[in-house]
């Protein structure tokens, strides 16, 4: 296909290109992705050529400069058909997001263009760090200074969209200094990739266990040094969280389709279910409008953390309700492995457990509310 022309693109034409790839190339693979763990590498490259990971990347780095809201829309368009591939699109575009905002130019210049175009596939291994920073778990990668760079050891249980010729973007604690965030080619000396125990869904995301033993990280691989990390994580986190909304919106759209198709045959009984299509669609539209607002604020550095987290939580909850309603509308046939409703349910649960998980969001929101209450009382 013809590569997109960065300077003349518009959100609608990007979405149309993505839709065409989804309908013709991705839709036939959804069964293999879900049930055989097929990793849709070629589809990712085609999506990259179409600009699907570059919506929020500036023209100066070959991106479309259409904004984070458009990137959310792209991920949603993919998720309408396949939640697993929507997650891969999130991984890829979020790595581009990290690189775009990298505090150090060399790593950005080296990787951003290739990641944004989908030529270099990339996984984000930031789940552990984000949970660690929220007081949920220990950090698993440890670094020590070495000349101008670092030496890193440890393991991350599961990182998606990685492989021997992929890039991973991860973070490690640096003794008493804080954290360093860096890019590392997955075939770098000291990096080992191992299979994970089988998941109940999302098996086509090439999610692997990554282990590091004395991996040397040169300065030109560093996105943020310890003294830059606090500002950096505050900059990237809203985009990290908000782009995940696309996965939820896509699964909700797919679930609404199942509900409407099911009603063709059994609306006379489906009307007794709690979550009807019109109600779900109305709630989803409200979340999408809020997502557009928050994405705009995030790009201007003006998003409020608690609003972003509340929106992400609401999207998780609605995605669960929509997917459950879809299978209840479908009835017994929705329980067949060939029916999308059961896959949607597993994908929806993923949206609620991927970092930041539903429980994580509630914990962080609670902490922020408590802090606000203390500030008001003082």
């Amino acid at each position: 296909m013809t590569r997109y022309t960065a300077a003349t693109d518009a959100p609608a034409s990007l979405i149309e290109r993505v839709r065409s790839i989804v309908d013709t190339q991705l839709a036939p693979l959804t069964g293999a992705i879900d049930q055989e763990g097929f990793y849709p590498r070629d589809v990712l490259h085609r999506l990259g050529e179409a600009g699907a990971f570059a919506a929020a990347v500036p023209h100066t780095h070959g991106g479309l400069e259409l904004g984070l809201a458009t990137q959310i829309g792209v991920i949603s368009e993919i998720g309408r058909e396949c939640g697993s591939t929507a997650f891969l699109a999130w991984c890829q575009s979020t790595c581009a997001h990290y690189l775009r905002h990298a505090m150090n130019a060399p790593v950005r210049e080296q990787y951003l263009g290739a990641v944004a175009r989908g030529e270099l596939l990339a996984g984000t291994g930031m789940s552990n760090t984000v949970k660690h920073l929220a007081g949920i778990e220990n950090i698993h990668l440890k670094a020590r200074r070495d000349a101008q760079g670092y030496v890193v050891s440890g393991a991350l249980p599961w990182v998606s969209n990685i492989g021997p010729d992929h890039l991973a973007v991860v973070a490690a604690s640096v003794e008493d200094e804080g954290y360093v965030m860096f890019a590392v080619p997955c075939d770098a000396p000291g990096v080992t990739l191992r299979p994970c125990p089988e998941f109940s869904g999302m098996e086509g995301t090439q999610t692997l266990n990554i282990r590091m033993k004395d991996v040397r990280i040169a300065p030109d691989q560093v996105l943020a040094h310890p003294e830059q990390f606090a500002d950096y994580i505050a900059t990237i986190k809203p985009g990290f969280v908000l782009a995940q909304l696309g996965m939820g919106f896509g699964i909700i759209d797919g679930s609404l389709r199942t509900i409407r198709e099911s009603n063709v045959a059994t609306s006379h009984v489906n009307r007794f279910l709690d979550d009807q299509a019109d109600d779900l669609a109305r709630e989803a539209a409200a979340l999408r409008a809020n997502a557009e607002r928050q994405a705009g604020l995030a790009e201007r550095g003006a998003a409020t953390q608690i609003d972003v987290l509340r929106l992400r939580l609401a999207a998780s909850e609605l995605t669960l309700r929509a997917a459950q309603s879809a299978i209840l509308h479908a009835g017994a046939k929705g329980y067949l492995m060939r029916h999308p409703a059961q896959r949607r349910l597993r994908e929806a649960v993923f949206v609620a457990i991927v970092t930041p998980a539903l429980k994580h969001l509630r914990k962080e929101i609670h902490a922020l509310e408590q802090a606000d209450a203390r500030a008001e009382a003082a």
Partner: protein
Amino acid sequence: MSRQWMCGPCGMIYDESAGMPEHGIAPGTRFEDLPDDWECPDCGVGKADFYLLPE
């Protein structure tokens, strides 16, 4: 008394009575007696990320 330890990140269970003969850990090996650099065979985290399960 045999005890079970759970890996926090991935949920893998280390059962002291069973050990892990396939990984060179004899049945009956207490968790405390595993090498300090022992790693979860499924996800690679260290002993500090394991939790003793209640009986």
